[in-house]
């Protein structure tokens, strides 16, 4: 029983990690609490749903096209809703993000209806049995995907020129631009990558839970925010770790404590973790330079 | 009894020792300069005195009372106030409001007083306003009281920060590089101001400065820090002729230059 729950917890954690990765990346670079991230995730999932069920595409190409389309939408959103606000504190873009979130979710609500929709059978589900635990192929895909994307992302940020520019922008945008970095371009790129990651998460989660609905981004956004903060804002391995911890806490909390208190349990643990480590599990310590 | 006394102060950050067994004594009414090359630990000393850091070992006494380990705000209330190396005024508040916040520990209205009006609160508010204007006048900014402080020119921001620190009516004022980034004219003005603060208000001044002319011109006693250690202390002329000081400044610079080449 415990091992089964553990497997479920890890899978759910990998899902949260997937959403949190893109979130944390955008967050790390422009410091925006992007409440629209969840809705971008919903949109990515929608594209995949449309492509697989209406266009009857296979999942692999649908997955890639969904990521591409979503990153385009991400670019547009950045240009329209965030770029004009780059110099105006941190709460104005936050409200703007809420506007984008309401816009996207009601738009899809209008075109698709509020009903939850299932994905067609796009992945042949096989089961691997290890004693009492049963692991499905989808679960394996999700865990593998989130680890792969984390490594890829970390590679991009730490080892490439673009990543170097991103890190420069995250430390000090003005200095970065003085160094000849095109800050606008880098931020746009960050958004594109972040949105593509959100889409990847959306597709995987949509397939795994077999559910798409216009408001699915709302709770996903909160979970991503929570996972990112728990792991340490801006830290890519932190987002991964935060997601996994959150998933485990949710599953094990509802299995061994009270399932009706699930969210309260996970937030209590979050607050306790933050009190012990005020900048998250893997976050850099905030130094108040005097 | 010295006004401020640091005994055997050591401060370590991880493996780095920023301040190393430092002893300092400031008598009441002096202008005391602390100099040293970059990274010598001058600002750390200020942070230790004001309670931002807690020393790894050693003790700090103010008016005979031990203050290390106390929270910064209560150290301020006891009569130590400071300015910052990189100006830290309250940018989107007016110049007058900045100074009024300096009056915080000299007034006592709490939340309830501010809501329930009475003769006491009115009197106190009037007192805050008058005193704050006095300090603004002292630094020559009385005509700019309603201007948002971030819109003031650099030199005036520095002076505003000093006025804010004075508004606490400190026994001792810690100035962290008050002349940094100023032109000659402004530097002379700052030196005048420092002298006036001591002469008219009787405030002891503890000064960290990079600019030799300013330190030497205004201080009565100067101490030199190098790698967290005090290597010399005396009158400006004594310090200027001290071998170790010259070595710390010039010798190092010479070594560095060689390395860079």
């Amino acid at each position, binding site marked *: 029983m415990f091992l089964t729950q553990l497997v479920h917890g890890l899978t759910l954690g990998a899902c949260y990690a997937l959403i949190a990765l893109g979130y944390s990346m955008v967050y790390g670079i422009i410091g925006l609490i992007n409440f629209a991230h969840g809705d971008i995730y919903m949109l990515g999932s929608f594209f995949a749903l449309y492509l697989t069920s209406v266009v009857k595409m296979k999942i692999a190409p649908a997955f890639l096209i969904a990521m591409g389309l979503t990153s385009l939408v991400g670019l547009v959103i950045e240009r329209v809703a965030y770029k004009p606000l780059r110099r105006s504190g941190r709460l104005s873009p936050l409200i703007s993000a809420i506007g984008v979130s309401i816009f996207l979710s009601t738009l899809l609500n209008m075109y698709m209806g509020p009903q939850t929709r299932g994905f067609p059978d796009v992945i042949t589900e096989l089961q691997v049995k290890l004693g009492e635990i049963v692991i499905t192929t989808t679960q394996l895909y999700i865990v593998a995907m989130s680890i792969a994307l984390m490594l890829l992302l970390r590679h991009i940020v730490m080892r490439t020129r673009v990543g170097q520019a991103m890190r420069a922008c995250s430390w000090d945008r003005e200095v970065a631009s003085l160094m000849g970095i095109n800050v606008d371009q880098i931020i746009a790129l960050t958004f594109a990558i972040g949105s593509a990651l959100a889409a990847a998460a959306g597709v995987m989660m949509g397939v795994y839970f077999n*559910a798409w*609905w216009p408001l699915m981004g709302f709770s996903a956004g909160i979970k991503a925010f929570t996972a990112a903060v728990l792991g340490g804002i801006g830290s890519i391995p932190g987002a991964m770790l935060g997601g996994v911890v959150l998933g485990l806490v949710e*599953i094990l909390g509802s299995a061994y404590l009270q*399932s009706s208190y699930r969210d309260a349990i996970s937030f209590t643990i979050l607050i306790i973790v933050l009190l012990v480590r005020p900048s998250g599990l893997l976050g850099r310590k905030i130094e108040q330079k005097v | 009894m010295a006004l401020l006394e640091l005994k055997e102060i050591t401060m370590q950050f991880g493996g780095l020792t920023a301040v190393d067994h430092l002893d300092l004594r400031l008598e009441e009414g002096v202008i005391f300069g602390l100099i040293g090359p970059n990274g010598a630990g001058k600002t750390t000393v200020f942070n230790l005195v004001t309670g931002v850091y807690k020393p790894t070992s050693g003790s700090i006494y103010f008016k005979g009372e031990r203050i290390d380990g106390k929270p910064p705000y209560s150290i301020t209330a006891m009569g130590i106030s400071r300015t910052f190396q990189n100006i830290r005024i309250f940018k989107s508040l007016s110049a007058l409001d900045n100074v009024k916040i300096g009056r915080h520990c000299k007034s006592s209205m709490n939340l309830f007083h501010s809501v329930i009006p009475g003769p006491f609160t009115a009197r106190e508010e009037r007192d805050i306003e008058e005193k704050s204007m006095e300090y603004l006048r002292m630094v020559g900014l009385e005509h700019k009281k309603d201007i948002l402080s971030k819109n003031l020119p650099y030199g005036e921001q520095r002076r505003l920060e000093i006025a804010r620190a004075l508004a606490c009516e400190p026994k001792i004022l810690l100035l962290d590089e008050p002349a940094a980034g100023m032109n000659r004219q402004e530097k002379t003005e700052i030196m005048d101001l420092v002298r006036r603060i001591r002469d008219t208000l009787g405030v002891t001044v503890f000064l960290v400065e990079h600019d030799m002319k300013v330190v030497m011109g205004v201080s009565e006693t100067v101490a030199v820090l190098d790698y967290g250690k005090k290597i010399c202390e005396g009158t400006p002329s004594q310090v200027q002729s001290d071998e170790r000081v010259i070595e710390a400044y010039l010798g190092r610079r010479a070594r560095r230059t060689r390395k860079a080449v």
Partner: protein
Amino acid sequence: MNVKKLISLSIAALLIVSVTAGCSGGQPTQKSAEQKPPEQKLADTGPIKIGFLGALTGNVASYGINTLKGMKLAVEEINAAGGVLGRPLEIVIEDNRGDKTEIANVTKKFVTRDKVAAVIGDPTTGGTKVAAAICQENKTVLVSAGAVGPGVVEIGDYIFRDVVIDPIAVPAVVKWLKDSLKWKRVALIVSVNNDYSVGQAKLFEDALKKEGIEIAIKESIQDGDTVFTSQVTKIKKANVDGMIAPIYYTEGALLMIEAKKQGLNKVFIGGDGLLSPVLWELAKGATEGCMVFAGFSPDEPDEITKKFIDKVKQVYNEEPDMFHAQGYDAVYLVADAMKRANSADPSVFKTALAQTKDLRGVCGVLTILPNREPLRTPINVLEVKGQKFALKARVPVTAPQ
């Protein structure tokens, strides 16, 4: 100082007033037209207005949208047949997002600006309670299509509902479970943030206790959840005869998918919250055999119901669910009362509404009891078979003493 304070406060007040003046000045033409004395709306030959109260966006939008679709069909039919008292019906549509404040806003708008004769909705019990207080105060009839929880009609004599109410249905169904299916040990699943679910679960608990069926395990979910793994694992371990799941169809379908994944091959039974084609559209076979009790039966329907099902399919290209049916019936219930009372004045036709007896609707036969609670008989127990609900049993109910 004091003068300054006064000035600043009065400026603030001025600001409010100017803002609110903007509020009320918004629709001057409309208002002057509607500021006529209230008798006028009842006497003239204009359309009889019915307010639709429900969410078209937000979390509970699917209930509101389908209720509205059902209402529209009924109104079309009635108008095509000459309307009520020679006047056509007209639905005033406003979205409330499922937000209580907006529900209050919309209801106030209905009763004061639109001067509707009746308000139909809200599909949720909580929303209905907020709206009911306002309707009662303003003497406008409210018929809830969906509020099944307790404490609704008690709000006042203008408040009605046309649902299968749980206090009557649940004991009957539990008795049937014991007698016909021989269940002895069950799991109870409740969605804690859904008032429908919490209310029905409480009734189930009482009824199960009374019938001597053991609740082996009680598990909680939340509306909006997609992950039910730990709940299903625990239920599977509890080794029960069946699961009682008074929850809505989306969570129901996802829960049943998870149950099938984990090899929990026991039957779920739930209330009309589960009655939606979403069950098999989403769950691809995982819901096979799942049971639902409701007043509405798409299988072996009578004439009226069959006509209704065909019409929904034809107009909206979808299978009707509970909300379509309740919305549709609510309009007929109101129209019937107006006809019998020969008046569209709420204070008059509410009496006729309270005397409704054996009204044939798509959800069965409806009688309003003396305490203004509806009695629907029989209760249909349906079973998911392939892509449809098949009638499994008809459980008769009688009015409680």
